């Protein structure tokens, strides 16, 4: 995802997360450690018995795009957990994972007795309808959130951002880190009771990466699978990198070892979908969607609501909820009123502006949590005068972020010193920020070759208008730059679609773009620094709208992306992040918080830094 769109994306994230998160959250015990190495040298993941419940739904983060106002938030983010950096499964090394006791063991698989735990009424804000539930196509966070309740993949993340088995009960990684062998859960069933095999996963991956599903995120996140690019371009007859060894064994080969590949498999695009259903109903199959997740579609009333029923064959056990009633509510204020008049149990997982949050702050059912999310100012690095590092430094030093977050955003955000949000693996508490210092800012301005602020040509700052938070942030920045530096900035608030378009133009032809500075946001797709550094600021990557470029930064992230030693890897990212901060590749402003209303009768859902999550959907009730 690219930044630009942030709004969309952020939403997505938020939302997505929220949902996901819940799922993620599960295992109480923290981290698995573990490991078994197999003789071949590859690591095998073996189950420890600790974790029990795991989660659920879907992948955490998917990149979605959302549109959310920055403030909003509650939704979900990807699971990231920082702390667990050390547990990232690195290829080759010790990897562990937890296996849950399959509920259904033995040969006969009988449906679980589901229901009895009440309905969950949960609004999906910001849309009139979902574009799709098809995991190969979902982009918007609104859809990712809903889709994640129905589908599941090979692996999933827990609330602490650890990887957990899902459709695959375990996996082996070859010593070179390029071949992943997944052992599919023997009793895995679709929600209609028929078995799910390795071929279903292969078919689903091939489908997600096909040309027909270009609108989805498959090729973006899973392009590292061997043959994916050619298959996606229609040059081959199939996806060569994914093969079925036997009905329980799926083998995936990669072009290059990627430490974060397993996390990428937690995206929607890697989820398993029923071929029978897709072939029976064609493009409208999501109207009848079922998968291997905790819920299935009972009825999708377009433009109105999505009704979900429990999946009686859910591999983790009996879902207690009677179902989920998810109305689509375009205006978050309407959802807010609906919640307050008793019509909803959960509100705000997609959009929850701070202006509304102020009305319920302090209520026991109101939650606010910082999210893995950056709001930042980006620069057009290909045009004068902002290709001047010293000028960018002067602008960065002149921003009083504390006032911005505490006074202007009313506490709905945390000041951002660096690019990686606190809690994300790789977060560096020792990073040296460009702290607010008007004197140093003025000195930097002089060093940049301007005798004072008035000598700087008038700059423009673009952002998405019409959203209270961005308007406030932009106006505040304008004042700070004027007051602390004497630099004049013209504000350019734009409608979402137009802003997106302008950022695309900036990315494609920066020297012709009128954009000089822009406010954008980024939320984690998956809990890895690579997603925030290599995918945002490396020279010429798709998301690097402003074309920041530094050879040393590139070298550091390229090495870190494939480094298997976690300590060395994170050290590489720390150095790269410091360079990007010193040179102001981004000017990070704040990490925003998510807001959520969650009725006290709802048990089993928790709201964390990653959004609304659950340890285990089978444990969620609303009575």
């Amino acid at each position, binding site marked *: 995802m690219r930044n630009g769109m942030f709004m969309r994306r952020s939403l997505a994230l938020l939302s997505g997360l929220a949902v996901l998160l819940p799922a993620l959250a599960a295992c109480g015990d923290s981290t698995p450690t573990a490991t078994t190495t197999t003789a071949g040298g590859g690591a095998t993941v073996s189950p420890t018995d600790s974790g029990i419940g795991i989660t659920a739904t879907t992948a955490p983060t998917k990149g979605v795009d959302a549109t959310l106002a920055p403030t909003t938030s509650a939704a979900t983010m990807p699971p990231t957990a920082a702390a667990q950096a050390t547990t990232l499964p690195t290829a080759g090394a010790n990897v562990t994972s937890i296996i849950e006791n399959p509920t259904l063991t033995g040969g006969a698989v009988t449906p679980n007795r589901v229901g009895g735990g009440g309905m969950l009424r949960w609004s999906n804000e910001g849309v009139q309808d979902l574009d799709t539930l098809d995991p190969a196509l979902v982009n918007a966070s609104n859809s990712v959130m809903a889709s994640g309740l129905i589908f599941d993949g090979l692996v999933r993340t827990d609330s602490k951002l650890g990887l957990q088995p899902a459709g695959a009960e375990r996996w082996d990684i070859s010593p070179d880190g390029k071949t992943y062998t997944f052992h599919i859960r023997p009793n895995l069933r679709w929600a209609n009771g028929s078995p799910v095999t390795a071929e279903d996963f292969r078919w689903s991956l091939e489908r997600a990466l096909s040309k027909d599903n270009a609108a989805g995120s498959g090729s973006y996140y899973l392009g590292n699978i061997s043959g994916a690019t050619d298959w996606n371009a229609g040059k081959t007859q199939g996806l060569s990198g994914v093969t079925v060894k036997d009905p329980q064994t799926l083998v995936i080969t990669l072009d290059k070892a990627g430490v974060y590949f397993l996390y990428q498999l937690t995206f929607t695009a890697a989820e398993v979908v029923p071929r029978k259903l897709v072939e029976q109903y064609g493009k409208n199959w999501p109207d009848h969607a079922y998968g291997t997740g905790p819920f299935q579609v009972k009825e999708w009333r377009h433009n109105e609501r999505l009704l979900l029923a429990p999946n009686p064959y859910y591999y983790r056990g009996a879902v207690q909820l009677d179902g989920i009633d998810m109305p689509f509510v*375009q205006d978050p204020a309407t959802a807010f009123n609906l919640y307050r*008049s008793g019509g909803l149990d959960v509100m705000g997982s997609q959009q929850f502006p701070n202006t509304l949050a102020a009305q319920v702050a302090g209520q026991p059912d109101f939650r606010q949590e910082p999210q893995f999310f950056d709001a930042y100012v980006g620069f057009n690095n290909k045009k004068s005068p902002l290709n001047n590092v010293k000028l960018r430094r002067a602008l960065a030093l002149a921003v009083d972020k504390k006032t911005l977050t505490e006074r202007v955003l009313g506490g709905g955000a945390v000041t951002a010193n660096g690019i990686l949000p606190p809690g994300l693996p790789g977060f560096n508490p020792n990073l040296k920020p460009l702290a607010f210092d008007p004197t140093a800012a003025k000195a930097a301005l002089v060093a940049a070759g301007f005798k004072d602020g008035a000598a700087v040509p008038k700059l423009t700052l673009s952002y998405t208008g019409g959203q209270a938070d961005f308007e406030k942030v932009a106006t505040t920045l304008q004042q700070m730059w004027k007051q602390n530096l004497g630099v004049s900035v013209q504000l350019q608030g734009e409608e979402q679609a137009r802003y997106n*378009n302008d950022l695309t133009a900036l990315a494609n032809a920066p020297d012709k773009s009128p954009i000089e500075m822009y406010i954008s946001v980024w939320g984690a797709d998956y809990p890895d620094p690579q997603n925030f550094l290599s995918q945002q600021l490396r020279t010429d990557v798709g998301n690097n709208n402003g074309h920041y470029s530094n050879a040393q930064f590139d070298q550091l992230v390229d090495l870190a992306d494939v480094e298997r030693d976690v300590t060395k890897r994170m050290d590489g990212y720390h150095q790269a992040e410091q360079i990007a901060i010193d040179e102001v590749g981004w000017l990070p402003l704040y990490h925003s918080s998510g807001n959520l209303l969650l009725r006290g009768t709802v048990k089993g859902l928790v709201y964390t830094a990653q959004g609304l999550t659950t340890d285990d959907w089978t444990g969620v009730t609303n009575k």
Partner: protein
Amino acid sequence: MRGFLLRRLGSALFVLFSLTLLTFVIARLAPGDPIMQMMGNRRDPVRYAALQQQYGLDQPLPVQYLQYVGGLLHGDLGMSFQYPGRPVTTILAAGLPVSLKLGLGALLLSTIVGVPLGIIAALRRNGPADRVITTLMLGLFSIPSFVLIGLLVWLDLTLYKAHWPSLPVAGLQQPASWVLPIFVLAASSMGYIARITRSSMIEVLGQDYIRTARSKGLSAAVILTRHGLRNALLPLLTVLGPSVAFLVTGAFVVEKLFNLPGIGNTTIQSIGQRDYPVIQATTILLGVAVLMMNLITDLLYSVFDPRIARQG
């Protein structure tokens, strides 16, 4: 009469054709890219090209337009960009009943309440009843719907918190859900209708033929209905006709704030997503409705006032 109809139909076709062209051009002139919206704004030239081809957006604009018009002639409004696999006709068919019910409900309510109140005000001209009605109707006519909605929802939430009976504030889950949206939508036209009825009734009641009728000894009821109302309603028809047309396209603000799955909501969403086929379809739907209602209004005029038919 036949010549009149043919002429009107001919000009309607021309207007419709111009409308398709204008909508087509204007939608594409707006900055923004439906494919980027579709892709979630991830930048990927290969996927971008594939999608452009899939939706025919790689063709030159004139070709796209001809294909579009060709489809229109077959009743094919195209496929939505934002909702994969959903024809535009299906989307419109889902929203139309909601908008129609809402609009017809509001029209009925505003007429049933507005016309009698206007008559009463006219008959009690300058009396206390007139003053109360006129003030109230002026208020209803002037208050913007988003303000009225805010007020009503606040009242409703207050009732709910006090554990008193209250109305649903959004959605269409129960029959009572219609009450607030229909009232809000009816409010301003109710005020307008009452005021027009009042002034035109006052004018008519001062006419010579009313005096004649009175002197003939006709009862007040007969004078009012046969001679007064029939003539007084003519200006009302001018107002009501075109406003019926807007019923089918939904009420943007009311549908959005009450979260009703009607055409208005669909239109708002499609504009934000640059879903060209849906934007075009809702605009054309509005165009057709306006043309038809104007035609019907003209025809009704001649029913109410035979002089117009003779001239026509």
